[in-house]
């Protein structure tokens, strides 16, 4: 039998990138929040400059929960799904914001209106076949104040390209208008970033530096980036990466209104007969507890948000929490993002050190920034090149037909070229489709005996076309930068498990086609808020975390303003 705990105002499930920011406005408003986190706190000394630890073994996590619930994957409903080899997330206070790249983008205004803008410019037939895409129930302008809040609360380095319509060619000239400059300048310019910016200009593109939730200068008592080159899938040893564990969570703790329960493995969200959520059931160190609350905020990773809802069946919700319209798990998007284009250069690039977010980006071929008439696809891809190459990954390089893959000739080739190649990271605007969804795996279970999440992801046409189009542009960019070899290996299958997994509990105006309302609260269970990538309607051509955080803050403010109607 579960031990019943004292009721609180809000119980949060998962204290990561999303709830990690949401707890700040809540606790500042005097709301008592208990956060149930499957992992524990991590310290600077837990983080290592070690490719095997971080990238090969993926050891930057606490506990083993994340390894026990790796989703399964299949490409059609007649297949048996196979479990992935490694998790796409981690467990700790601060969640994946601890070991992410920290590329901190705003989505483009077009991303919020893909359907209506496409129909307006190219006609209804331009909507990709089988796509369930809708406009978001909010616009870029609605979210802009919250983007701004997050950029300043956690600290983002970057260069604005559009301040209230005033365009600065040093920044992203394609971005939606912002109210002010970033709180910090971009991460360090290097010979490499200068070279790639110059080459992009030569190719006729509009390059700019990556926006990063990493301190480019000391801020709020924490260090600037040490550029040591172990940021990707590693935590920051000098606390310069602005994970929620070093920014908004400690700020929320200072209010005295935040209780964090570490090592809390939430198993179910409970509801009463009227469909109101009553709290969360969890296991901690082998004991079961029930934490009652007036409001539940489900804020884990996309796969876990969906799984938790499908597992939480009740009298009011026999098919899973807030799923009487069968929308939970639908409209899932695995972000189409690849390094298809690889270039070999005649000089040492010296990109070993630095951060992944110390990059150069070209946005000319993303969103609707170019005329798509006759191209056969909508959207596109952003193209990024970046610092931070690790030695094992570097040595696993393609040999461009110039050497075999092993033996003395290979050894000579890598000795010359391991530091002379790079790939262009192409992130596509990605849409939801009827043939792509999440549900529970019928066979594979976690250690508690609960089924893991299953991904079904059918074939797509639009995204590979958009990616191929962008790949041609990446080739031009690399040639302009002096590459002596450029190869493109198309990925026509897209992601299986994704670190950019979105949708599955998407937001919308109607319960018939979405799970949550424009503020992230469930249509069918109004005191259940959902934070995280699962509420996204489309996926922009860029990393999703800042958008997830802006939405989470907006949900929290909405809850504060409407406390009585939601919690009452």
């Amino acid at each position, binding site marked *: 039998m579960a031990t019943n705990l004292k009721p609180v105002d809000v119980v949060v499930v998962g204290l990561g990138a999303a709830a990690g920011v949401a707890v700040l406005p809540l606790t500042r408003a005097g709301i008592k929040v208990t956060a149930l986190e499957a992992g524990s706190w991590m310290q600077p*000394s837990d983080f290592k400059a070690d490719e095997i630890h971080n990238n090969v073994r993926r050891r930057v996590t606490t506990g083993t929960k994340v390894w026990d619930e790796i989703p399964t994957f299949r490409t059609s409903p007649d297949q048996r799904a196979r479990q992935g080899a490694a998790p796409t997330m981690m467990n700790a206070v601060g969640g994946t914001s601890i070991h992410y790249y920290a590329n901190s983008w705003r989505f483009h205004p077009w991303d919020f209106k893909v359907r209506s803008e496409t129909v307006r410019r190219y006609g209804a037939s331009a909507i990709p076949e089988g796509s369930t895409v809708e406009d978001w129930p909010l616009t870029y302008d609605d979210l802009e104040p919250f983007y701004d809040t997050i950029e300043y609360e956690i600290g983002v380095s970057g260069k604005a390209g559009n301040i209230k319509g005033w365009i600065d060619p040093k920044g992203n000239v394609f971005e939606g208008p912002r109210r002010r400059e970033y709180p910090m300048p971009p991460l360090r310019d290097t*010979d490499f970033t200068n070279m790639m910016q110059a080459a992009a200009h030569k190719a006729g593109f509009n390059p700019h530096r990556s926006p990063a939730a990493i301190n480019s*200068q000391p801020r709020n008592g924490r260090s600037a980036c*040490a550029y040591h080159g172990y940021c990707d899938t590693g935590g920051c040893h000098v606390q310069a990466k602005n994970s929620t564990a070093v920014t908004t969570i400690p700020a929320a703790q200072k209010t005295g209104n935040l209780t964090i329960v570490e090592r809390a493995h939430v198993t179910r969200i409970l509801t009463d007969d009227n469909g109101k959520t009553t709290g969360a059931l969890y296991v901690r160190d082998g004991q079961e507890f029930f934490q009652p609350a007036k409001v539940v905020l489900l804020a884990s990773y996309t796969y876990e948000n969906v799984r938790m809802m499908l597992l939480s069946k009740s009298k009011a919700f026999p098919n899973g929490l807030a799923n009487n319209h069968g929308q939970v798990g639908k409209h899932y998007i695995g972000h189409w993002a690849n390094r298809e284009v690889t270039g070999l250069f005649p000089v040492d690039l010296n990109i070993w*050190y630095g951060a992944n977010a110390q990059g150069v980006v070209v946005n000319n071929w993303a969103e609707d920034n170019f005329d798509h008439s006759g191209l056969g696809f909508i959207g596109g891809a952003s193209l990024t090149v970046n610092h931070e190459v690790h030695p094992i990954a570097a040595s696993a390089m393609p040999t461009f037909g110039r050497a075999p893959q092993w033996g003395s000739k290979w050894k000579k080739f890598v000795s010359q070229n391991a530091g002379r190649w790079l790939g262009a990271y192409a992130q596509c605007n990605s849409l939801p489709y009827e043939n792509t969804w999440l549900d529970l795996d019928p066979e594979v279970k976690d250690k508690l005996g609960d089924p893991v999440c299953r991904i079904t992801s059918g074939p797509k046409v639009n995204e590979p076309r958009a990616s191929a189009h962008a790949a041609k542009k990446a080739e031009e960019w690399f040639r302009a930068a002096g590459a002596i070899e450029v190869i493109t290996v198309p990925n026509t299958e897209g992601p299986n498990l994704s670190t950019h997994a979105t949708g599955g509990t998407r937001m919308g105006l109607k319960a018939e086609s979405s799970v949550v309302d424009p503020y992230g609260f469930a249509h069918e269970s109004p005191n259940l808020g959902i934070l995280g990538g699962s509420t996204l309607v489309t996926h922009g051509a860029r990393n999703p975390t800042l958008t997830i955080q802006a939405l989470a803050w907006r949900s929290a403010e909405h809850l504060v303003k409407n406390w009585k109607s939601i919690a009452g």
Partner: protein
Amino acid sequence: MKDTSITRRTVLAGATLVPLAAIRRAEAQSPAPAPAPAPSMNTDQRKILDAFIDRLIPKDELGPGAVECGVGDYIDRCLADYLAAEKPLFLDGLANLDVFALRTQGVAFASLTADKQDAVLTAIDNNQAPNLRGFFNRVRRLTLEGMFGDPVYGGNKNFAGWDLIRYPGAKLAVGPEDQSMKTPPKPFRKELFGAGGIMADGHMGENHGH
């Protein structure tokens, strides 16, 4: 102590925006190096593996190869703990390699000349032994890990792997001069995590003055 202070200077060179205190926090609890587990292969199995990885990255005029760099130790340790679940499959792969060598060359793999070993591996690489294709790729991947990973895991002895590809080395703070394309970064060859590594030295004095 003298050596330590040189190390500190190297670590902090140019990192003007990273306070010493931040580095100190990172060093606060250096992880104890894990003791080497008991070997997961017998002598014969290890002989096949060593012969294999010696052909993947041979010792030559460019420097030591996979065997000299301890890649065999790296793989052996992986199979003993981190990859324990994979061990039976891996040992089958070694046995199958020997069977294939006997069938095609008439001699066990480790006893073949280097040229004949290359012929066997080339045949596998060209998919003439489909049951060994996955194993070949796995050994190649683990060889890269052992050759170019941190030496604390048993491979990359004396940083020879990093010297080979001119990876400048893992350190805690990197200044602008080390991100330049005009002058190559100075190699930093100090273990961060092993016994005696800078994370373990505990010699953080107060008077660094950088």
